[in-house]
């Protein structure tokens, strides 16, 4: 064996060992714990009133967040790419901010400005809207932490999208509506789906900001991650495992669905295994993709 392949082998073992220790072993541990309980326990755990209400609330809030994020994220991406206006550079730089702010700080900020002691909170309260310790607060927190996803997934595509294609379509006599559906939507759709699905998955797991703004009222404002935390604190690993595994399963299914939907026809390898080039973490705009 030459020195070169020996080095390659050493590096490969280091990489695999590192990923196994950090990601594979912990996953195996929770899968193992889940198997010990068995399927009957699993169903019993997730269908208990408190767990099922937490799971339903989480999915519902994540869904609302995803819809709002899709609409305003698309709008923001289009406006940031296509219009020149005062403050454009500033807003564009701010998009990354939720990645840099600790989620717990996000929770404090939302609690402060929308809470009962602020002017805005008082005004909302007289209007009959409670944000804190209620669903609107949960959705606001989820919206804040997922804000960059749709915008950052769409921006590079919108920059690349040739306006000439749209103009050619107009010239050939297509109506703006036809142009939108036949030219703009198909090229933007994979990016939009990536942003939207990642928003949903990220919102499902959010903890730090929600634990502040939602309080911890069982059956009312308790989301899945807060429920899991409660189960851990009260030494009930089985209950924590079942709900965790259920949330993980939803996340993985959503990601697999995303892969199916965005894979170009005829491509051999699942794209979500090679998210390296666009997407993921999404969302962070790649330097090479800025004009």
């Amino acid at each position, binding site marked *: 064996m030459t020195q070169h392949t020996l080095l390659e082998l050493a590096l490969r073992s280091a*990489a695999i060992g590192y990923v196994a220790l950090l*990601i594979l072993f912990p996953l195996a541990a929770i899968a193992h714990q889940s198997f010990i309980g068995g399927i009957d326990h699993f169903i019993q755990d997730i269908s208990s009133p408190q767990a099922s209400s937490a799971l339903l609330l989480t999915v519902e809030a994540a869904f609302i967040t995803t819809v709002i994020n899709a609409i305003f994220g698309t709008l923001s991406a289009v406006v940031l790419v296509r219009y020149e206006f005062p403050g454009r550079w500033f807003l564009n730089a701010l998009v990354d901010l939720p990645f840099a702010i600790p989620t*717990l700080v996000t929770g*404090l*900020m*939302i609690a402060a400005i929308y809470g009962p002691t602020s002017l805005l909170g008082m005004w909302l309260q007289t209007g009959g809207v409670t944000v804190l310790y209620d669903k609107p607060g949960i959705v606001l927190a989820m919206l804040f932490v997922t804000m960059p996803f749709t915008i950052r997934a769409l921006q590079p595509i919108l920059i690349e999208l040739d306006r000439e294609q749209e103009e050619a379509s107009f010239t050939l006599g297509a109506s703006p509506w036809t142009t939108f559906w036949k030219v703009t939507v198909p090229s933007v759709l994979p990016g939009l789906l990536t942003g939207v699905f990642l928003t949903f998955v990220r919102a499902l797991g959010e903890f730090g900001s929600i634990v502040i703004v939602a309080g911890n009222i069982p059956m009312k404002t308790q989301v899945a991650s807060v429920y899991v*935390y409660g189960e851990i604190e009260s030494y009930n690993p089985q209950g924590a495992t079942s709900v965790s595994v259920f949330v993980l399963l939803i996340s993985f299914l959503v990601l697999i669905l995303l892969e199916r939907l965005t894979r170009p026809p005829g491509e051999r390898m699942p794209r979500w*295994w090679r998210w390296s080039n666009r997407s993921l*973490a999404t969302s962070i705009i790649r*330097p090479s993709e800025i004009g």
Partner: protein
Amino acid sequence: MMRRLLIGSVWSYFALLLIGPILYLAVQSFDEGIAAYWREVTKPEALHGFALTFEITAIVLAVNLSFGSITALVLVRQQFAGRTILSGLIDLPFSVSPVIAGFMLILLFGPETILGTFFGTLGVKVLFAMPAMVLATLFATFPFVVRELTPLLQTIGTDAEEAARTLGANEWQVFLKVTLPMLKWGFVYGATLTVARAIGEFGAVLVVSGNILLVTQTATLHIYQSYVDFNYVGANAVALTLLAVSFAILTVLELAKAKAAATLV
């Protein structure tokens, strides 16, 4: 008209969701004066939290940069069975809730498990101590460096490295003098995201640390504890300090992005 409406609604979206809450927290933190702010951030508990967060971030950054670049190199340059699985596993932490990540570590290193018993007989405390907190933070930040470096490695190819080897450079020289400089801004970008996430990590660290005052209480855990204890001034003061760090991080991110775009074009 349409254009004005669209721009206006984007400004409102940003104002309601981002700018408003940030400004309000800043104003609130100084509600009781600068003296109160200073008293809160220089309390022993707060100072210990900052120091512990700094320590964890430094360790995580070092491990993540070294193993992250090795993993990226292996993924891009080597073909082997299980490569796609390895690549898929790397993205996983993005979709795992921090609380669940922490819980998985508890299940893995708990006193009744094989690993837990092993470290127990060695006398090494993993859970409710530094090792678990570092592991939890590593889990959360794992994809950043790898996912910044892989597209760069794909773009630059191996031509320059081959040339250096032909000219007699050894592997270490090739890496230090050829590969590393080309990856510079990718490293900066991945490192900055890692630092941001490490400083801000809360859920996973809360679960594995036990949140022990002056022992395993990081800056974010200190904010949480203050908030739970109704010390809102204290919570806001430390939160504002972390927020200032976030803005510094954002500046570095924007700078790295611009630099990388300039060098690539």
